[in-house]
């Protein structure tokens, strides 16, 4: 479906940059509306699972569909940078965490897709898995960065939440963490898989009115 174009940023056409802006703005709009709303509903210390999973999943879908339309190296990272800047201008009070997550997820998708010249569906699934699995490590890293010593609190909170959701005793802490990580990997793979279909569907929708190449 997608043929990788060999070029750095210097070879980007006006259309490439505009499409990068479109997908960056789409994810940015989702972060500014849905993301902010979810963060108010679930304050940062109380939730270690839901918001990140939803926003990372949606973000990876948008970035991967964007990659269908801008098949150039670096495009996904550029989309992520635009989303991060839009998020920085948002009215919400605390945006440093989401900005780090946005940049990390776009970088992980970029790295996953750099390894292949012509992505196929399972590359998208792999890229989605990598991006969403960042959500697992994000809380630890942000806690270390923001609060210094809070890492054990996050670990305990994650195990307690996981124990409640999975109906497992807290003694099986490693199993709980493994399951929580694998859930993210699976959700990410599903998002990548869906993004492949969604990209094709959007291309079919636009096909009759497709503009000539720049």
């Amino acid at each position, binding site marked *: 479906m997608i043929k990788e174009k060999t070029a750095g*940023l*210097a070879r*980007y056409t*006006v*259309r*490439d*940059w*505009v*499409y*990068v*802006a*479109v997908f*960056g*703005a*789409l994810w*940015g*709009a989702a972060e*500014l509306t849905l993301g902010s709303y979810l963060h*108010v509903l679930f*304050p*940062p*210390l*109380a939730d270690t699972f839901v918001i990140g999973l939803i926003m990372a999943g949606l973000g990876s*879908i*948008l970035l991967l*569909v964007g990659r269908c*339309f801008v098949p150039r190296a670096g495009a996904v990272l*550029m989309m992520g*940078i*635009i989303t991060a*800047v*839009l998020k*920085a*201008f948002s009215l*919400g*009070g*605390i*945006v*440093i965490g989401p900005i780090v997550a946005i940049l990390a997820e776009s970088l992980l998708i970029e790295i996953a897709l750099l390894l292949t010249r012509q992505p196929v569906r399972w590359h998208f699934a792999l890229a989605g898995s990598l991006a969403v699995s960042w959500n697992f490590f994000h809380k630890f890293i942000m806690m270390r*960065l*923001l*609060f*210094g*010593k*809070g890492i*054990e*609190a996050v670990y*305990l*909170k994650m195990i307690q939440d996981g124990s409640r959701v999975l109906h497992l005793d807290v003694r099986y802490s490693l199993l709980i963490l493994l399951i929580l990580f694998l859930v993210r990997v699976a959700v990410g793979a599903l998002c990548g898989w869906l993004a492949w279909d*969604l990209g094709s*569907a*959007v291309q079919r*929708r*636009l096909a009759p*009115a497709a*503009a000539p190449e*720049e």
Partner: protein
Amino acid sequence: MRSWPGPGSHLIFLMWVLCLTAILPAGQMLPLLITVLLFGLLNGGRGLSPLRRARFWIMILSIIAISPWILGQADEAWGPWRLSRQGLFMGLEMALRAICLLLAFSVSVRSLSPGEMVRLFEGVGLKGLGFALGVALNLLTTLGATIEAAYHTIRLRGGHRRPWLALKLLLITTIANALRYGDDVVKAASARGFDPGVQHPQPPLFRRADGVFALSLVAVAGVLLLHPW
């Protein structure tokens, strides 16, 4: 041209605070916070707006409130609860560190205007990214209207009966319409002969005043690290 502090100083300041929060012991966080507040005030107080938001304080106070329960060994009885004094102090340290970082981010990056951000990207050689950011900023309001129109169309056609299909249709319609809008932007840019790769004369990102500011920050870091507070 904007006077000091410019984008360069803001970036230097953010990096400085990030480094210091990583290496400073907990006791030295208060002087760092005062420095961040002073920089914010020097900057016209624009970046200190989080201090006026309830959400900011709810987050900070929740850290302090939760810490005695989940950190450290419980050594104090407070009614039916067993609390940790060590956990409370750890919570206070964590809250102080969080305030430092959040305010540093706010007074540096968030106080830059979109135009300054575009200039920042162009200053580091990412010419097209500055253009793309401008397009994205202008696109946000259009996207809101596009998503709303698509949502109501799908809802009126009975989309709520099949939510997953409705969600898929909403995504396809929104992305397709955003790309169509993007094509119009491309046509407008091409008609004006716009080329994102063309060099435009830009004032330098880092000026002499930024260098002096960086040196003074190094001196302050030395005082914070070596002075027995």
